[in-house]
């Protein structure tokens, strides 16, 4: 696979949010304002990049049996870094992301990419993969947040829009609005890709990085 296709893979064909349906919690929760969505996207991209590079560097060192705990510790380290930087230099963003900043640790996208890609590829390829996936995540977040902010508060990036600012539908900034908009976005992706995008993988264990352990531990 050449590097350009590695990069664009995460943007469209394997978009982590809209096609693979990974890391939905922050997408639903932080997408009330476009600015927050960008902040969350950048923080996640940073962690993804760090984790992918670290895993690719250490791929011959980490014993296979304990790789998942090792990945989790690496990810948690980068999340701590991201949290400290945000707290120091972007305090309003730190406040509005709240609990979802430390929760990047449990975002499935990161473990999933480490397990699927970084484990078996070079450092440079893994970094490119992380950038593509991060960009895909950020774009999906931005799309979600733009719809919710425009309809729900009548603003975009905090700038009031004509007409819409007077009659906003505030339900879209609340929890039910998040579910509705996400459902509609997935339906659009289904329609555009003629069902190919989601059909190949029923939501559930298949997309989960701990699926292998899970099957091993429980099937008996």
């Amino acid at each position, binding site marked *: 696979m050449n590097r350009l296709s590695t990069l664009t893979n995460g943007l469209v064909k394997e978009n982590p949010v809209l096609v693979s*349906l990974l890391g*939905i*919690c*922050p997408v*639903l*929760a932080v997408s009330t304002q476009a600015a927050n969505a960008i902040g969350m996207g950048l923080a996640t991209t940073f962690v993804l990049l760090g984790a992918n590079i670290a895993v690719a560097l250490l791929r011959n060192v980490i014993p296979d049996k304990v790789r998942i*705990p090792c990945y*989790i*510790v690496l990810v*948690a*380290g980068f*999340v*701590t870094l991201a*949290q*400290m930087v945000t707290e120091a230099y972007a305090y309003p963003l730190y406040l509005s992301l709240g*609990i979802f900043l*430390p*929760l990047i*640790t*449990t*975002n*499935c996208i990161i*473990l999933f990419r480490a397990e699927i890609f970084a484990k078996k590829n070079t450092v440079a390829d893994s970094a490119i993969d992380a950038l593509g996936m991060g960009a895909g995540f950020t774009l999906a977040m931005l799309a979600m947040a733009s719809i919710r902010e425009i309809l729900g508060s009548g603003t975009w990036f905090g700038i009031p829009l004509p007409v819409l600012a007077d009659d906003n539908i505030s*339900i879209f900034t*609340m*929890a*039910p*609005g*998040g*579910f*509705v908009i*996400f*459902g*509609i976005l*997935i*339906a*659009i992706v*289904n*329609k555009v890709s003629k*069902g190919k995008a*989601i059909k190949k993988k*029923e*939501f*559930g*264990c298949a997309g*989960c*990085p*701990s699926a292998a*352990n*899970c099957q091993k*531990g*429980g*099937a008996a």
Partner: protein
Amino acid sequence: MDFKAMIIIMMSAALVNNYVLSQFLGICPFLGVSKETKSATGMSVAVIFVMLLATAVTWPIQVFLLDRYSLGFLQIIVFILIIASLVQFVEIATKKYIPALYNSLGVFLPLITTNCAVLAAVILNIKENYTFMQSMVNALGAGLGFLLAMVIFSGIREYTENTDPPESFKGIPLTMMSAAILSLSFFGFAGVIENMFG
């Protein structure tokens, strides 16, 4: 111990600020394991169990270790390691000593390590400056709220599985719509605490 404050914390975590339906924590198991009421219940009980255990372990560690030696910046790493090892430990222990419990919960335990609701519960307990008892009550309330949402939603899904929506709305989009309506109905709990205890 202030009994009323405990009730307020519990009601708030379980109903008003329901982890799944108003805070979007633990959406993955909510969508993935809610097809049947039986597995939804099993998953939720496992979550309650791990949440209580994790709170009982992380609270003392935060207060007596991290805070005392100003190591607060290690919080995320320490907590996720505790949760991961706790889950492993519980799995091994129940397998050996309580096989009946293992058979009903075992399948769900490994999934909980990457469940953000558990990590969120233990971090929020510290953020809110809860005492030990308050933290335990909050964890129990959050877990019960998770159970409630899972069980109701699995009931809804058993119906929606048999419906015939437009082609592109099949699967996840339809599930999302049902989740939206359920989360809307949880808005009804918004004023409960003010009106009961205010």
